[in-house]
């Protein structure tokens, strides 16, 4: 996979979420992603950024334009140093929540993207990587 363009944004407040979504939109428009895929990616990203604010307080998101074989897409890495997730399998189930949401954030985001990877260490933080291809 080759990287074409990359940027990291800090996520600390609700306002950062708006800025992040706008930057992300600029990227997906630039590579010519279809409107439906744009909406799916930005919605998924929105869920994940919201998780950072809700559970870790702050973190960062790295937006990257990537290409592999015949496709171009956008990869986003969400990183925080929050409490981490003790049971990832549980967290990936629809409707499971520790009380701050509908419990659709992680499983919902996974359904909206082409690639989803989550790594978490209790006490050290969580890293989520997603990719949505253009087509």
């Amino acid at each position, binding site marked *: 996979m080759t990287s074409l363009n990359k940027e990291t944004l800090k996520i600390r407040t609700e306002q950062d979420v708006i800025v992040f979504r706008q930057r992300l939109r600029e990227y997906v428009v630039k590579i010519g992603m279809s409107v*439906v895929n744009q909406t799916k990616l930005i919605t998924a990203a929105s869920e994940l950024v919201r998780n950072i604010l809700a559970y870790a307080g702050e973190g960062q998101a790295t937006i990257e334009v990537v290409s592999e074989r*015949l496709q171009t897409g956008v990869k986003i890495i969400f990183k925080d140093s929050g409490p981490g997730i003790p049971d990832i399998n549980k967290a990936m189930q629809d409707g499971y929540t520790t009380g701050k949401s509908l419990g659709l954030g992680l499983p919902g985001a996974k359904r909206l993207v082409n690639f989803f990877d989550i790594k978490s260490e209790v006490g050290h933080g969580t890293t989520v990587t997603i990719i949505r291809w253009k*087509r």
Partner: protein
Amino acid sequence: MATNSTTSLLIKRRKDIFQIWVDHQVEDPALRDDLMSNDELRNQSEEFLDLFLQAIKSGNLEDISRTEYQPIVDLLTGISLSRAHSGFTPRETALYVLSLKKAVIRVLQEELENDPASLVNEILNISNLLDSLSLVTFETYIQGREEVILRQTSEMNEISTPVIRVWEGVLALPIIGTLDSERTQIVMENLLQEIVETESNIAILDISGVPAVDTLVAQHLIKTVDATRLMGAECIISGIRPEIAQTIVHLGINLEGVQTKATLASALKYAFSKMNMVVTKRK
């Protein structure tokens, strides 16, 4: 390694190699002079050979991922891709590099006639290198074909999901063939877009042409119904054959909340009654 001498040897005999190589290609019964003229083939081959000799001058005869091989790999990629697109067979495409190997080996044989040990050595070296290059040909040829298939698939998906206006405010979408997730996306996108454009309140999804409904297909249908409802329109599923009704029940698929009709005609009738319209025979 004695590669240096071989390299200069090959450069010295460039003309002969080129001639033998082109002759090989032209003589081959599989030559596609219908797809490519002999002049074109000559020019292409000459450029290829020059870049090849340029690359082996570096002394590296093993690793084609190094920068000195970039130009030749690029050229080869381009050749294979364009051959894949214009309909050459894999054999015809692979033969391009393989016939160069023949030519190079023939020249080496002539030059090193009296030194069998180094002849074997050099032939091994050069054929390893050319094998690597011919693998590139094959990989990119397949990639080229994949591109063709991808394009055709998306074209087929596009044309196989027409949205029909059957009445003012009523859309129908006959689905032929099976529904996978990619196709469902296209169906949804086309249907919802058309609902917006025509301000239709009712959409009929006719599945007479769907061979089988399993849990996954049902899930896709329910998604489409849900999305239509979110837009503010109603989605009816019609064309449910008896055996499909049976499988739906046997699989325990819950179609509650989904308006279903046996035929497109009864779905249309339902749509009319929803719109407070009556169809009567003229007296």
